[in-house]
């Protein structure tokens, strides 16, 4: 068999050497449909995914559905996780958050449709979350943001509120809500960089 003389691309599709080896090996084993790898990942991360989903949905069954869906998606499409962008833990968190928020919004639409009592005023959610994080002793950068940035961020993230709902909750213009969400993320990113934390 002779070597092909076709021109070869200079660089391959490999993730760069800068990506930690353990992340790459985890993804390689998931791609290889390695059942043991899946079980290990599940044992390790399901509790935190469940906790996050439960915090947002405030519904045990919904949280369990989110956990199932997140892990089934990882197994079915291992390429949807990009190891260059962060550890698997962070990817699972982001996907779980999106699924949980989608569930909350569906529930809200459903609740409105059947004229059930309105959910609690969500401007209180931010206080609750903040207080809880403090109660846990978490010196989180998010908790230490100035109030005008912290409240919209926590409402949007943990309260599943859109920026329009945030504006309504806080009695501020929509444009201001958008600006504050973006500013909150910038401040948070800067604080993380200062602390040398990479997620």
């Amino acid at each position, binding site marked *: 068999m002779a070597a092909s003389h076709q021109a070869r691309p200079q660089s391959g*599709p490999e993730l760069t050497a800068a990506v930690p080896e353990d992340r790459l090996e985890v993804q390689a084993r998931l791609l290889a*449909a390695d059942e043991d790898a*899946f079980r290990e990942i599940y044992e390790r991360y399901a509790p935190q995914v469940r906790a996050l989903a439960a*915090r947002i949905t405030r519904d045990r069954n919904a949280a369990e559905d989110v956990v199932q869906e997140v892990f089934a998606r990882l197994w079915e499409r291992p390429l949807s996780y990009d190891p260059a962008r962060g550890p698997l833990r962070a990817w699972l968190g982001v996907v779980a958050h999106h699924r949980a928020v989608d569930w909350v919004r569906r529930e809200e639409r459903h609740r409105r449709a059947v004229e059930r009592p309105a959910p609690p005023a969500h401007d*209180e959610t931010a206080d609750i979350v903040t207080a809880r994080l403090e109660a846990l002793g978490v010196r989180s950068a998010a908790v230490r943001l100035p109030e005008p940035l912290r409240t919209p961020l926590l409402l949007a993230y943990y309260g599943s509120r859109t920026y329009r709902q945030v504006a309504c909750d806080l009695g501020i213009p929509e444009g201001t809500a958008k600006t504050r969400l*973006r500013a909150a993320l910038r401040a948070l*990113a800067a604080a993380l960089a200062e602390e040398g934390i990479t997620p």
Partner: protein
Amino acid sequence: MSGAPRPAPDEHPELCSLLGAWLLNACSAQERIAMAAHVKHCALCAAEMRDLHPAVTSLTSQPQYEDPAPYADLMAYEDAAAYEDHVSYEIPAGYENLASPDDGSHRSQPLSLPLSSASSTHGDITALAFARRPPAPRHLPPHIRPYADQVATLDAVLRDLAAEEWNTQTVEGWTVAQLVAHLAATDSLLAETLDATARGPLDLPGDTVPARTRAFTSWAVDQPPASVHAAWRTQADLLRDTLVREAAPNTPAAEGPYTPGDRLGLADGPRLTLADHATTRAFETWIHTRDLALHTGRRLPPPTARSLTRMSDLGARQLPFAMRHRGTPLGHRVLHVELTGPGGDTWHLTDPENPSSERPPDTHLVVGAMEFCLLTAARRTPAETAAHTRVTGDTALADAALAAAPAFAGP
């Protein structure tokens, strides 16, 4: 800039302000779609997205999730059920208050999840996941595992492709579909060589790899992607099962020299054991999966470490044969090859005709195992690999070794 779709001139100021809300999943569905399209062609927003991404992931992965009581939140719900009429948001000593009193619909649901272990729901989790994508067999001989790994990996990549991507041009003038058919062709030939009764799903002619490949790639031209995918996968599983059967303890060929006929042998190459044949199939399946990923814009991690170990070992052991094949035999010289990173090891290589040379190595060559495997598959040029290789001793010998390494690379 020229190739990308251009954004509407006034789109950026409006959409860039949405970036924070979008990253937090806090905008409408229409805005979500508009932003996803916008960041693809707006370098400013794409850069800001990258900068802000750590902030978003930090919210999902805050330190409290790492604490040894991961069910704190669920306990909070359990406790919340006892606070049916609790209307204040005071924080008692624990975490109870997270579940704010609301319309009560949540609290009416019994919280039956055991708090001590995740395993009670574990069966459900694997059931949903494995129904969508079956796991590889759990127990395989170690020399067959790399092939199973690479087959499952290609399968995952093929599942990721849209139907039209199967027509993408790859290597050797083949489309994705033809490249997959080529793998099935070689797999079918090896399976039949090992066991004449191991007939795959396609009964196509050809007694050599090129002839069988022509038959398979011609067949694939007008087949729907699902047919090509299924035919390859069925053939791959058949080869795996055949390899496993041949490797059963009562068959002698498992690790000894094994010559399954001339048609799969390499000219001037070493005699391959059955394990080596399994490794060559893993190797080729990986390399073409990589080709496919490259041409369809996907990024792959390196193969599993256990696969790279076998592949780099085969490549290193074949090196003296490759050098003879290229007319630059080792002769009485000794070559030390040290492959680094996952799948790496060290080999003391001598010419097949002077196997017991006791002299100290003339050349010591250090290169990454992955890089070396890509070179032996002709996915790197010797010059490219040389740039990542550390050589001590006779550099001419090192150059000859690197130049010969791809000698057995085929289509």
